[in-house]
C-alpha cells in the first residue's frame, strides 16, 4: 500500500467501478505521474498497479485513493473499522480477541471508558466485544479499543446477552451503509431490537423475545443478494410467518 502526502488529482483509471480480477493492471504509475494512494486489493509492481483480489475497483476522488471492494468471508483489519471480537485469552495487560482476521487482535485492559488498573471490566473467554480497530499493520497484531477518539465508549464495549452470527464482510458493510440498509429499516418498523454490526462479518442482535432475534438474524442473512424492493418483500414475509 503506497501512500504519499500531497493530494493531487490525475487521470483516473478507466477500470473504476469495473469488476477486476487478480493480475489485472489498473493503472500505469509512470503515466499517472501523480500522487496515488492504494487501498486493499491492490499492489504496486514496478510502475504498474496490479489487482490482487477479485472485486470492484473503487476510487475516491478526494485523496486519489484506489481500492478493490470485494466480498470476502475473511476479514482484513483496517483502522477505524468497528468489529465484533470474541475473547480467546486474557493476559496481564490485554485480552486476545478473535476478530476473524489472520491473527488474533489485542484489546488492552485499559482501553475502556474510565477504566483504571483497579477498575477494569472483567471479560471471560467467550465474551463478545464490540470494538474499534486502532492499529492495523501487517507486521504487528491488530490493536482494538472500546473507546472512540474522544475516549468515550460511544457504544463500544462488551456485548451482553443477544446472539452473534457470521456473515460475509460485504453484507456487513452494506448493513452499515447510509442511507440505512432497507432490511434493517423494514425490520425496525415491526420489531424493536438492538444490533451491532462488525465490519469483520459478525453481527450481534438482541431483543426482548428470542423469536425476534431469530427473525431479525434470518432476515439479515437472507437479504445479502436481494435488491431493496426484494428485501422489503422478504421482510414482509418473515413478519407474516411470525404471526
Amino acid at each position, binding site marked *: 500500500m503506497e501512500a504519499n502526502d500531497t493530494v493531487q488529482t490525475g487521470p483516473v483509471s478507466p477500470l473504476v467501478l469495473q469488476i477486476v*480480477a487478480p493480475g489485472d493492471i489498473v493503472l500505469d504509475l509512470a503515466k499517472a505521474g501523480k500522487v496515488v494512494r492504494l487501498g486493499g486489493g491492490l499492489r504496486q509492481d514496478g510502475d504498474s498497479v496490479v489487482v*490482487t483480489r477479485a472485486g470492484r475497483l473503487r476510487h475516491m476522488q478526494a485523496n486519489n485513493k484506489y481500492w478493490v471492494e*470485494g466480498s470476502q468471508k475473511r476479514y482484513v483489519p483496517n483502522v477505524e473499522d468497528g468489529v465484533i471480537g470474541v475473547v480467546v485469552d486474557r493476559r496481564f495487560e490485554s485480552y486476545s480477541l478473535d476478530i476473524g482476521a489472520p491473527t488474533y487482535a489485542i484489546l488492552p485492559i485499559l482501553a475502556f471508558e474510565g477504566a483504571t488498573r483497579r477498575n477494569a471490566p472483567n471479560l471471560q473467554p467467550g465474551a463478545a466485544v464490540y470494538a474499534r480497530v486502532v492499529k492495523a499493520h501487517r*507486521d504487528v497484531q491488530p490493536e482494538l479499543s472500546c473507546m472512540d477518539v474522544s475516549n468515550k465508549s460511544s457504544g463500544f464495549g462488551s456485548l451482553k446477552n443477544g446472539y452473534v452470527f457470521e456473515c460475509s464482510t460485504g453484507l456487513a458493510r452494506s448493513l452499515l451503509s447510509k442511507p440505512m440498509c432497507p432490511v434493517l429499516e423494514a425490520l425496525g418498523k415491526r420489531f424493536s431490537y438492538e444490533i451491532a454490526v462488525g465490519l469483520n462479518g459478525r453481527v450481534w442482535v438482541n431483543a426482548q423475545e428470542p423469536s425476534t432475534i431469530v427473525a431479525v438474524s434470518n432476515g439479515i442473512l437472507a437479504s445479502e443478494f436481494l435488491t431493496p424492493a426484494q428485501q422489503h418483500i422478504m421482510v414482509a414475509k418473515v413478519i407474516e410467518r411470525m404471526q
Partner: protein
Amino acid sequence: MDFISPEGLRLDGRRPLELRQLQAEIGVVEKADGSATFEMGNTKVIAVVYGPREVQSRSQQQHDQALVRCEYSMASFSTGDRRRRGKGDRRATELSLVIRQTMEAAILTNLLPRSQIDIFVQVLQADGGTRACCINAATLALADAGIPMRDIVASCAAGYLNSTPILDLNYLEDSGGGPDLTVALFPKLDKVSLLQMDSKIPLDVFEKVMNLASEGAKAVAQFIREKLMENTKQLVLAKGR
C-alpha cells in the same frame, strides 16, 4: 493404438488442439472462506480454502510470510473401480506438494505474515489431467477467499501421441504411454510456475508440446477469469448498488 483417426478426430471427438469442456462453480462450500469446483470434461475437482487464519501450531509460524498448506485427496468413488485411497500415499503427497508450491508462488504471502492458509483439494471424478484441474480449482477457491494473489494461476496438460501433440489428455489418452506434460502459468505476467513431465522426449517435440500446453493454460486462464468476474459481479451487483 490409434488415438487420432485419419480424419483428425480423437477418441472422444475432439481435434488434437482442443480442450475439453470447462465448467466451474465458485463458493460451493458455505462454511469455508473460499471454495470452488472445477471441471475439465469428466475430471471434476473441488477445492476449499480456509484462511488466512491464526497458525495452528506455533512452531510453524513464520514471522515474515504466511504458511501455505495443501492437502490433496481422491474420493473413493472418483474412478471406475471403487477403492479407498489414503491421502498419505506417495502420489497424494507428491501432488499436495506440487499444488502447494504452485499456489504459494501465486499468493502474496508476505502480506499475510504469521498466518496460515489451508487448501484442501479433492478429486471427485478422475478422467485424466487431475493435476491441472486441481490447480485451476485451487486458484478459484483462493480468489473466492479473497487471498491476495500476484495473478491467476491456470494449468493445462498436453501430450504427444501418434506423433502429434495433443492438448488436455483424458484418461484413455493419458494411459496411452506417451509423455504427459503439465504446465501452470501466470497468464498476465506470462511466467511459468509449474512444469512437470516424467518421460523422455526429444527436445524439439518437447518444445511443441510445451507450447501447446501453455496455449491451453492461457485459454483456461481466460475461462477462469471470466468465471471469477461473473461471480464477483453477481456478488457486488446483488447488493443493489
